[in-house]
C-alpha cells in the first residue's frame, strides 16, 4: 500500500462522517418545512433510515452493490453477506458507501410527508434499497451496466477504447444513483399514496425556517464529504498530485455550484414573486449541490457557476409544477432532486471540460448522459412501484384521516414537538 493512501484514508474517514451527518441535517431541513404537528414524524423518517439501512448494508447491501456482478445489473447479495470475506482495507469504503444508501433513502421521505404509517416506511426502506439503490449503485459504480465497462450501455453505443467505453458516462458522486433515483421514487410514491388531506386548499407553510436553514447549512457541509470523498485512488500506486488537485477542484466546484444556485433560485423568486425568500436560499443550496453531484469532477469552476445558476433557476420554477399537476410532492423531492439531478447529469454533456458540447467535443457525451439519466429513471420508477405496491398490500400506506388532520406526530409517535409555554412548559399543554 502506498503511503499516500493513508492520507486518502484520513480524508475518507472524515468524508464518511460528513455524509452520515447529512441525514440528521436532512431531517432538520425537511422538519422545518412541515407543520408543527408533523415535524417529529418527518425527522423520524430520516432516523428510520439511520436505524435500518446500516444493518441492511452490512448484511447484504455492500454485497449487492459491490459484490461479483450478475448480468451487470446487481452484485450477488450472498457473495459478501454480513461482510464476511471483505478485505480489511475495504472498511473505509464500506463506511463511506453506507452513508450514501442512508441519505438516498431518507431523501424520498420529503415527498410523502405528514401522512404515511411509520411502519410502512420502515418496511419500504430495506425493500427499496435492495431493489432500487443497490442495483443502480452496482450499475454505475460497481462496474455494471451504466459504468464504462465493456458490456455497458456506453460501450454498446460508441464502442471501446483500451477495453473501456470510448465515451465513458460521468456520475462522480451520484446524480443518477442518488438524486434521480430518490426523485423518481418520491414521484412514484406520491402518485401511489395520494395527497395530504387539504392539499391545495389549506395553508401548509413551514413551521420553523431557522431549522430549515440550519439543515441546509449541515447539508452543504456534509456534501463536501459526499462529493470530495468520492475521489477514487489507486491504493497501490497513489497519485499524489492527482489526489491534491482533483479533490481541491471538486471542493471548489461544489461550493461554486451551491452558491450560484442560491442566486439562481432567489433571482427567479425576486422576478416572479417580488421577494427573495430564505426558504428559496436554502432550497437553492440543495438544488445546486444536487446538480453538481455528478458533475463536480468534470467541470471548471466557471462551468460549475453556470451549472449552479441554471439548476437553481430551473428547480425554483419546477417546484411550482405540483400545484399545476396536482400531485402532492410535499417538500419537493421531485422539483429539487429529480430536476436538479437531471440538470447535473445532462448538464455534464454540455459543460464537461473533456467531452462537453460547449467545449467543442460534440454531442456524444451528451447522448450518453441523457441515456443513463433515462435508464436510471426507468429502473427507479419500476423498482419503486413494485416496492410501493408490496407495502400497500401488506400494511397500507396511509394513516387514518382524522389522525392526519389532528397531527401525525401524536398519532404515530405519541409525542408533540414543542412545549414552549412561557409558563415554563406543560401547564397548558394541549394535545395537537
Amino acid at each position, binding site marked *: 500500500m502506498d503511503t499516500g493512501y493513508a492520507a486518502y484514508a484520513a480524508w475518507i474517514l472524515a468524508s464518511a462522517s460528513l455524509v452520515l451527518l447529512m441525514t440528521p441535517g436532512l431531517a432538520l431541513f425537511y422538519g422545518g418545512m412541515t407543520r408543527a404537528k408533523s415535524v417529529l414524524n418527518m425527522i423520524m423518517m430520516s432516523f428510520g433510515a439511520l436505524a435500518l439501512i446500516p444493518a441492511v448494508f452490512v448484511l447484504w447491501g455492500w454485497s449487492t452493490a459491490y459484490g461479483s456482478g450478475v448480468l451487470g445489473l446487481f452484485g450477488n447479495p450472498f457473495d459478501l453477506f454480513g461482510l464476511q470475506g471483505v478485505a480489511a482495507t475495504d472498511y473505509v469504503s464500506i463506511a463511506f458507501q453506507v452513508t450514501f444508501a442512508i441519505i438516498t433513502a431518507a431523501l424520498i421521505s420529503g415527498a410523502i410527508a405528514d401522512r404515511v404509517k411509520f411502519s410502512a416506511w420502515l418496511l419500504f426502506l430495506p425493500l427499496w434499497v435492495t431493489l432500487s439503490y443497490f442495483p443502480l449503485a452496482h450499475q454505475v459504480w460497481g462496474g455494471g451496466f451504466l459504468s464504462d465497462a465493456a458490456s455497458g450501455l456506453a460501450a454498446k453505443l460508441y464502442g471501446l477504447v483500451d477495453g473501456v467505453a470510448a465515451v465513458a458516462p460521468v456520475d462522480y458522486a451520484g446524480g443518477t444513483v442518488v438524486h434521480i433515483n430518490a426523485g423518481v421514487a418520491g414521484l412514484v410514491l406520491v402518485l401511489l399514496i395520494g395527497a395530504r388531506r387539504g392539499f391545495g386548499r*389549506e395553508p401548509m407553510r413551514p413551521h420553523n425556517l431557522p431549522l430549515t436553514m440550519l439543515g441546509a447549512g449541515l447539508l452543504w457541509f456534509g456534501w463536501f464529504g459526499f462529493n470530495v470523498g468520492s475521489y477514487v485512488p489507486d491504493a497501490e500506486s497513489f497519485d499524489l498530485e492527482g489526489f491534491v488537485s482533483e479533490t481541491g477542484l471538486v471542493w471548489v466546484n461544489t461550493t461554486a455550484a451551491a452558491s450560484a444556485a442560491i442566486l439562481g433560485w432567489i433571482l427567479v423568486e425576486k422576478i416572479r414573486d417580488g421577494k427573495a425568500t430564505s426558504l428559496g436560499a436554502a432550497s437553492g443550496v440543495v438544488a445546486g449541490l444536487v446538480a453538481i453531484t455528478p458533475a463536480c469532477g468534470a467541470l471548471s469552476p466557471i462551468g460549475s457557476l453556470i451549472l449552479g445558476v441554471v439548476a437553481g433557476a430551473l428547480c425554483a420554477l419546477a417546484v411550482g409544477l405540483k400545484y399545476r399537476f396536482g400531485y402532492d410532492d410535499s417538500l419537493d423531492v421531485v422539483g429539487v432532486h429529480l430536476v436538479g439531478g437531471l440538470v447535473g447529469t445532462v448538464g455534464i454533456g454540455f459543460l464537461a471540460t473533456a467531452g462537453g458540447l460547449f467545449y467543442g467535443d460534440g454531442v456524444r457525451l451528451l447522448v450518453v448522459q441523457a441515456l443513463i439519466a433515462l435508464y436510471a429513471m426507468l429502473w427507479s420508477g419500476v423498482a419503486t412501484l413494485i416496492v410501493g405496491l408490496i407495502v400497500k398490500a401488506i400494511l397500507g400506506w396511509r394513516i387514518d384521516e382524522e389522525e392526519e*388532520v389532528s397531527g401525525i406526530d*401524536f398519532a404515530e409517535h*405519541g*409525542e408533540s414537538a414543542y412545549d414552549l409555554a412561557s409558563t415554563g412548559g*406543560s401547564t*397548558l*399543554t*394541549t*394535545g395537537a
Partner: protein
Amino acid sequence: MKLVTAVIKPHKWEEVREALAAAGVAGMTVTEASGYGQQKGHTEVYRGAEYDVSLVPKIRVEIVIDDLEAETVVSTIAQAAQTGKIGDGKVWVVPVDSVVRVRTGETDEAAL
C-alpha cells in the same frame, strides 16, 4: 350590544370565518385557547413516563355586535362549527354597555 364568544375546534376556524363574513360580520378578535370538557386529551409517553395532556386545543372568537344581529351570529357560528362529534364547543352571549373604535373615537353601533 352583545359580545358573542365562541369556543370552536381549530380546523373549523376557516369555515366559521367564511360563514361569518357571508353573514356580514366584518370584525372579530381571535385567541388560541385550550378546552376542558367531555372531549378528552391524550397520553404521551416520553422515555417510559406517561404524560396526561388533559386539554385540547381550541379557537376562541369574540364578536361585539348589535343586539339584533347577535342571534344570527350565534346560529351562524353554531352551524359552521358543527361536526357532530364531542368537543365542538360552546357559544355564549354577554351584554355590552358600550364600544369605542380607537381609530376614530366613534362609539357603540358606529364603532362596529
